[in-house]
């Protein structure tokens, strides 16, 4: 079974600063990795995912994440954040059979003016 760790429960950053949200996973099998975003008073939305191929994946709003197998990490980054990026971000993993879908505890990103 997979497990997902997000060491940072809260990350405050100033607007236009870069940010990295950390995610580490453990699994005995190949995994698919995901980042979901939850805006205030809303459900989770898929932000980006790694299934196979290029280890660097991007979202439409400027976030990117890199799959690093040796470090078992899938950190989320953005070079310049906006106020509107304030949300909770969840890293998740599943095995490549689509079973055992597991969410991390979440990281609350607060972008300050």
């Amino acid at each position: 079974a997979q497990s997902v760790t997000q060491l940072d429960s809260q990350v405050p950053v100033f607007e236009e600063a870069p940010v990295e949200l950390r995610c580490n996973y453990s699994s005995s099998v190949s995994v698919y990795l995901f980042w979901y975003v939850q805006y205030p008073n809303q459900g989770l939305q898929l932000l980006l995912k790694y299934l196979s191929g290029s280890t660097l994946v991007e979202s439409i709003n400027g976030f990117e994440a890199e799959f690093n197998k040796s470090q078992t990490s899938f950190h989320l980054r953005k070079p310049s954040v906006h106020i509107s990026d304030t949300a909770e971000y969840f890293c998740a993993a599943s095995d490549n059979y689509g079973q055992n879908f597991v969410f991390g505890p979440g990281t609350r990103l607060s972008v300050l003016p």
Partner: protein
Amino acid sequence: DARVTQTPRHKVTEMGQEVTMRCQPILGHNTVFWYRQTMMQGLELLAYFRNRAPLDDSGMPKDRFSAEMPDATLATLKIQPSEPRDSAVYFCASGLSAQVGTGELFFGEGSRLTVL
């Protein structure tokens, strides 16, 4: 605009009362999940249905919680009797079984339950 619909959005009740939360998955989706979100525990999977059959409800306290899918367009989560520790936001999510494993999971806006 296809979306997962959850009702009620907010519910305040007293300890001991029965609470029923409803979810209408996106039309055509055959996989439904119930999650509970709290500050302390984060997102917890309560139950998981495929083609209306429960596949995993190991995360659900069996003595007071029950989850059903009376038909393909309705999933229910019932708590009887409710307790203050059940206060949380309950999310329903749906997807196609062939796509859920690749992250194509669509969440409702949640039902915020407060048990006094």
